[in-house]
């Protein structure tokens, strides 16, 4: 089948950037000989050597801190979280040193690092391997947070993240690695701070990110037969939000639904809805709606797991409801 798998798109991005800039290196658990737990760094160790693709011991906080020190002294490390959840153990280094150090040092140092890996709820992986750390890290100053959702944006965003002089937390989704798509040939870079207007519409704005983009697309398809015209926006940048795109859309549709995979409390949508209330209040014809995961540890049981995260039919119902509420 033609097209590029998402994990290969990421791999291409890293490969191209490593070839372009010898200061770019990768470090993490099983990134080298094993090629990464989702094969995002497959064969790169052979190509670039063991120092540039460094297999680390299982010591998340320490190798993340090591990446900070390497970045401060001139390298551009990409840290792989074997599963983004494991980076709970690196919270200190990500917050204090990746996020805050440049400011605290009065601009002495920059920390050009990318922290990337699989996040989100997979298929019956259990609570610990199904975390959505984008929400937990959201309050940390000084880091950009990005979530890719297609092979095309995965590659372009990864290249942009590597070239950015700031720390970037780069969320991939464990269930999207095998997504296939024809991607542009040749060199391209996507803007880190721009939302993706996936589908234009006039009746309601849906803001989403990562895997939920695809749930939303299913919902949008179902709604087309009902003549409801959804505007679908993939946020891409979870920090900072692309408020220009968001505001423009809400000014047009006057209704907004946020669809997210993180939990409702303290989630991405919580911050987004606060900003929308502050900045778009007069444009809203209905209260903004959040469709989030339940505030519970993700259960193992498949049926319960499906009940924990938002399903396409819930998006459909929510759209029907908000559209019928018009002024």
């Amino acid at each position, binding site marked *: 089948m033609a097209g590029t798998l998402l994990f290969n798109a990421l791999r291409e991005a890293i490969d191209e950037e490593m070839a372009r800039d010898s200061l770019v290196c990768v470090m993490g658990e099983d990134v080298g000989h094993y090629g990464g737990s989702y094969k995002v760094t497959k064969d790169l160790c052979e190509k670039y050597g063991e*120092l540039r693709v460094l297999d680390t011991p299982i010591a998340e906080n320490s190798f993340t801190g090591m990446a900070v020190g390497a970045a401060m002294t001139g390298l551009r490390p990409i840290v792989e979280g074997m599963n983004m959840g494991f980076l709970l153990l690196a919270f200190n280094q990500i917050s204090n040193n990746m996020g805050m150090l*440049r400011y*605290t*040092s*009065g601009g002495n140092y920059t920390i050009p690092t990318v922290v990337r890996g699989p996040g989100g709820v997979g298929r019956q992986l259990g609570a610990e391997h199904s975390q959505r750390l984008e929400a937990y890290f959201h309050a940390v100053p000084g880091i950009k947070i990005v979530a890719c959702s297609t092979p095309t944006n995965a590659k372009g965003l990864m290249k942009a993240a590597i070239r950015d002089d700031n720390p970037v937390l780069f969320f991939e989704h464990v269930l999207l690695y095998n997504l296939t798509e024809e991607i542009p040939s040749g060199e391209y870079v996507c803007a880190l701070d721009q939302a993706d207007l996936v589908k234009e519409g006039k009746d309601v704005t849906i803001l989403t990110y990562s895997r939920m983009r695809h749930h939303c697309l299913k919902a949008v398809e179902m709604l087309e037969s009902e003549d409801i015209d959804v505007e679908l926006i993939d946020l891409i940048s979870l920090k900072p939000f692309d408020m220009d795109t968001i505001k423009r859309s809400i000014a047009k549709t006057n209704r907004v639904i946020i669809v997210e995979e993180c939990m409702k409390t303290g989630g991405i949508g919580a911050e987004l809805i606060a900003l929308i209330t502050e900045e778009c209040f007069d444009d809203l014809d209905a209260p903004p709606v959040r469709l989030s995961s339940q505030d519970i540890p993700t259960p193992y049981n498949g049926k319960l797991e499906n009940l924990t995260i938002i399903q396409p039919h819930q998006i459909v119902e929510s759209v029907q409801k908000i559209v019928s509420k018009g002024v």
Partner: protein
Amino acid sequence: MANQTTNPINKPEEKGFGAGEHAERLSGLATTEQAEIDKKTGLDIFRDMTLGRRFEDKCAEMYYRGKMFGFVHLYNGQEAVSSGVIGAMKKKHDWFCSTYRDHVHALSAGVPAREVMSELFGKETGCSKGRGGSMHLFSKEHHLLGGYAFIGEGIPVAVGAAFTSKYKKEALGEKQSDSVTAAFFGDGTCNNGQFFECLNMAQLWKLPILFVVENNKWAIGMAHDRATSDPEIWRKANSFGMAGEEVNGMDVLAVREAAIRAIKRARNGEGPTLLECLTYRFRGHSLADPDELRQEEEKQFWSERDPLKALEKDLLTRSLATTEELRAIEKEIDKEVTDAVEFALEAPEPKPEELTRYIWAEKEERF
């Protein structure tokens, strides 16, 4: 090289002076060898230590006069470690990583007293532009990787700097890349995971780094032997196949000698060293600490081993300096410290409109 298991747990014959096991260890060291120095080096070290001591005394004064805020941790008593190690390294070439007790490491690394004092006063002229404060001194120019206020978090960063040194040499083919990193931290920090994780990684990859433990026996109010299963920290190097040494941290020339050995190993690609310096802080943990736990007898024992007085004695007996020269240096230093205070007092505050500056990178700031 005092290495690994060859040194049993030394217990001196004459016990009972009452200053405790930490103090007793001083008389059972495997080596007390001092570095050979010439006159210039001797005076440089004396100058550096005097600056460290008098700068900190001035900080206490300024803190109590309300010029300085927050948590301020002074270094008095430990000067031989900073001057002994950093003095043996190459400024603006090697890298230095500290903790919240960082003023003197910054000074030894060459950060001007004016910049350090301004930072403590929260001024724009501070080495961290008034954004960092006492526990967050940074200077890229002087290769100061920073003061880190959380226990242990500076150690991985230092390992990263050592990794860059190796990377430049081996992955980028920069043959001249031979910088060594020194990471300073306390005895209490050696019970933290990052310490062990980093010892493992540094030895595994033979990184050019010195882990310099300033064992002053106390972690705020937690006595070292109440916090750790084996108080002889240097021996923990053995578990990682790493070189470990213990040294009298009140003897700057002994620290220097041990540091020179470790730096040589590091520069030669032979890997890291865990260097445990037995020392003592002459003041409370911070200027907010009432210092009620430590015994008078213990304090007495260590104050009799004041590293500045010990160096003075060494310089005089080796005829490397005269008393007049040393007093003249102290006068110079007093002037430098007074100048730093005057400079800092008059320096501008950061501009309110720059409150959010330095969150994001401003331009390509590559090396």
